[in-house]
């Protein structure tokens, strides 16, 4: 009995030892096999990493046509983890299979796969910029080796990022001058007009074209299309916008865009060489009380027979942009008839305007656009009193007069106003009209002022809306416009969406917000400007950037683009974005080699930006603290975001053409993404 117990206990012990040792043997064997698998995986990575890298860089190459990987990455939304071996033309696994067979006839296996993993959208906040395509994640080369029952995975991962090289919400703007008023309100036109009249060599306007023109390189449009587009009241959504702020900015729209003269948009330009002013009727409710009913007034033929005639009144005016085809620009060509008071003329001047937001005078070059901020425009308003005699015989006298009677209401200052100002036919004719004095139709100066000719300041939106009436050929226009198309907007509720309805941005737009969004996209940091040119200019002297680079430039040197040793304009073969942390900008001429490229330069702390040559620049420039200083004529295709513009007589003017393909509302926007693959690996086991 006793023996049996001892025997059983020993048996149990022996069996448990045996099985324990057996288990342990397997455990240690697994560790050992694991190391063999590790070397197999290592062999897998080592043997094909070069080939895989080549295939990846071939596929990601910006000039590659129809790259399936790029297509995958540029799809809006987040791609799920996906193995892209087949897109890379997997040629390595067959070789690895051979090597595995050599190591062990049946128990070894190696497979190398390339995966896109953990891809997620990187810009998702509509308060700063929500981009459906920008994303980041890992490009992983994974070598999985099996040996007997052990498996080891060796992964080499690189950060992969897809980001736009356009300046976020700024890409919706032609011109964004954040400090155009230099914080001083009611100072006349701080986007400085040459109102002191010191311009001696002709007007030099800075013209903003907010649409494609037939002369726009990279995205030329034809006249027919542009004119067709004008019919759409919502066209402003598809055009470049302008912001001038933050306080009141006055634009003086004056004479002179060169030979053609400036034809402001209140002229009907259906025939370029024939200018028909557009007349606005004043609604009854806006007339002084006295004018609303007919008045008995002696007629002007009193030399023959004194007679009181009953006249009824209407009021109309022409808002006049300046149209000066004469050679009398230096005098007062647009103030014909001395209708405007000397004081007003002195205050507003008749000389050149340098900021011309509406584009050119020519047909097909006039932009209708969205202008943000408290921008007002000053227009001469020629007011006429429309007089209709109620007695048929007098009416016949009026009707027979050629040219028809015209009673302009001259502008008067309050001091020079009295009740006895004569209001008479502009040609001083006597034909049965009323012997009219100001007191008969106005109670006081305020009444008179509301109907007199003058230089009037309108919020930009109002003039824009009036322009809409001109374009939509509303007959019998009244002022204010029948329909408000746009409301004043001070930039606090900006909405940018794509034509498919994706919301990119909603909220208040500030330039530091934009700079923050852009800085978060940086792929690479560089210390010196010289290093930048060394690294990214190719043998042919072309810029091949293809990424988003920050230049620290601690020495605060000027960033000259291109530097003097390169010829201008410098060709951009691979676009990108440069964030210049310190220093000022000098832009000397940059040209994109094709319509898929773009260059954005962001200089958050630059104080000045200058264009020393008149060469064209395909560029988006974001320098919200800088002043655009005088230099040569500006020739820019893209977006200009600047603090203010220093414009005195040395300012050469120029043109900023909105690049319509860069408009987020345009599907062409999707061309401007770059794929960046980190230059450094991260390794690990799993």
């Amino acid at each position, binding site marked *: 009995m*006793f*023996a049996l117990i*001892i025997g059983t*206990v*020993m048996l149990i*012990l*022996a069996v448990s*030892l045996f099985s*324990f*040792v057996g288990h*342990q043997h397997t*455990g*240690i064997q697994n*560790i050992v096999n*694991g*190391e063999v698998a*590790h070397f197999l995986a290592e062999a897998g990575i080592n043997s094909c990493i070069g080939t895989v890298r080549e295939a990846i860089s071939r596929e990601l190459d910006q000039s590659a046509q129809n790259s399936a990987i790029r297509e995958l990455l540029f799809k809006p939304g987040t791609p799920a983890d996906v193995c892209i071996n087949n897109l890379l033309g997997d040629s390595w696994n067959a070789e690895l299979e051979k090597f595995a067979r050599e190591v062990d006839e049946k128990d070894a296996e190696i497979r190398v796969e390339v995966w896109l993993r953990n891809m997620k959208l990187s810009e998702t906040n509509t308060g700063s910029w929500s981009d459906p395509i920008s994303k980041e994640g890992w490009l992983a080369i994974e070598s999985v080796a099996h040996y007997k029952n052990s498996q080891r995975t060796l*992964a080499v*991962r690189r950060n992969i990022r897809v980001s736009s090289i356009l300046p976020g919400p700024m890409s919706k703007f032609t011109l964004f001058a954040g400090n155009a008023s230099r914080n001083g309100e009611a100072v006349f036109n701080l986007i400085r007009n040459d109102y002191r009249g010191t311009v001696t060599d002709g007007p030099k306007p800075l013209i903003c074209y907010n649409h494609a023109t037939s002369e726009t390189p990279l995205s030329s449009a034809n006249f027919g299309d542009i004119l067709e587009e004008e019919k759409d009241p919502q066209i402003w959504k598809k055009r470049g916008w302008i912001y001038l702020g933050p306080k009141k900015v006055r634009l003086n729209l004056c004479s002179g865009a060169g030979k053609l003269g400036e034809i402001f948009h209140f002229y009907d330009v259906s025939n370029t060489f024939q200018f028909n002013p557009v007349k606005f009727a004043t609604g009854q409710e806006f007339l002084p009380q006295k004018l609303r009913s007919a008045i008995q007034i002696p007629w002007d033929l009193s030399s023959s027979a004194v007679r009181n005639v009953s006249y009824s009144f209407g009021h109309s005016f022409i808002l006049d942009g300046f149209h000066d085809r004469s050679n009398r620009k230096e005098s007062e060509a647009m103030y014909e008839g001395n209708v405007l008071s000397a004081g007003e003329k002195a205050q507003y001047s008749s000389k050149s305007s340098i900021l011309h937001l509406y584009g050119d005078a020519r047909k097909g070059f006039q932009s209708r656009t969205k202008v943000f901020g408290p921008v007002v425009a000053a227009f001469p308003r020629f007011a006429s009193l429309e007089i209709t005699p109620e007695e048929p015989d007098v009416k016949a006298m009026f009707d027979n007069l050629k040219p028809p009677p015209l009673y302009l209401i001259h502008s008067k200052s309050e001091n020079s106003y009295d009740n006895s100002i004569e209001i008479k036919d502009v040609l001083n004719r006597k034909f049965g009209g009323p012997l009219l004095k100001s007191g008969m139709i106005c109670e006081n100066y305020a009444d008179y002022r509301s109907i007199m000719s003058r230089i009037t300041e309108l919020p930009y939106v109002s003039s824009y809306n009036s322009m809409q009436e001109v374009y939509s050929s509303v007959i019998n226009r009244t002022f204010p416009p029948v329909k408000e198309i746009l409301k004043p907007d001070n930039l606090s509720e900006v909405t940018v969406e794509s034509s498919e309805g994706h919301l990119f941005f909603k909220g208040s737009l500030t330039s530091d917000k934009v700079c923050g969004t852009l800085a978060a996209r940086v792929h690479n940091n560089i210390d010196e400007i010289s290093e930048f040119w060394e690294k990214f200019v190719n043998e042919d002297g072309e810029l091949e950037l293809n990424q988003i680079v920050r230049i620290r430039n601690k020495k605060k040197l000027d960033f000259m683009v291109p530097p003097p040793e390169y010829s201008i304009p410098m060709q951009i073969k691979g676009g990108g974005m440069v964030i210049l942390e310190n220093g000022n900008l000098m832009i000397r001429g940059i040209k994109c080699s094709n319509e898929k490229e773009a260059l954005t330069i962001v200089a958050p702390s630059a104080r000045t930006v200058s264009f020393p040559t008149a060469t064209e620049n395909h560029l988006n420039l974001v320098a919200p603290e800088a002043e655009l200083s005088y230099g040569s004529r500006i020739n820019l295709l893209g977006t200009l975001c600047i603090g203010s513009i220093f414009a005195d007589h040395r300012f050469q003017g120029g043109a900023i053409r909105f690049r319509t393909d860069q408009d987020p509302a345009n599907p062409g926007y999707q061309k401007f993404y770059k794929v960046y693959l980190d230059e450094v690996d*991260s*390794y*690990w*086991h*799993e």
Partner: protein
Amino acid sequence: MKKSEKNAFTLVEILVVCAVVSVFLASAITLFSNFRQGFTRSESSAILLQDAALFLAQLRNDLNNAVLDTSLTNSEIEQQFSVTPKQLNFKAYDNREGAVLPVIYRLSGKEGNASLWRKIGNRAEKELIKSNVASLTWQTEIESFSGKASGTVRLCLNINCILQTQRAQEKPFEIRTRIFPARLNRQLNNK
């Protein structure tokens, strides 16, 4: 009476039986206790082997992921590993967090019966070997080559590990080896 006489064992019979039984019992007990001892010894040495294998595998894995500390200059290569008799520190890529994290191997407890702990990043420290470390030394060794390979260095960690259980009935398990962190060495030579 007669019957009882006949039934009784003789003294010799009893003595023989007693002797046989006691010899048998004694040998059975010795056998059993020897067997128990043998079992304990075998079990202990198996446990020690397993401890050593797991420790070396873990360390090798960590060293495979070891990353060059770029803040160090060439003359400070040894400091890639900060080595004290009780502690081994280096930096390694961690898969779970996707970042370079400090790795710490640490000995604690009584001399001769120490425990080995491993900690990575901020995660909880784990005990790799419980009370069985009789002695464990780790030293960095750097070879500098001459001739056409001059300028090349090779770094390794020289491990000498002796394990023994607290009962100390078994032969101590001793293993000595060098671990060469291959990727770290490649980084060193490309610096």
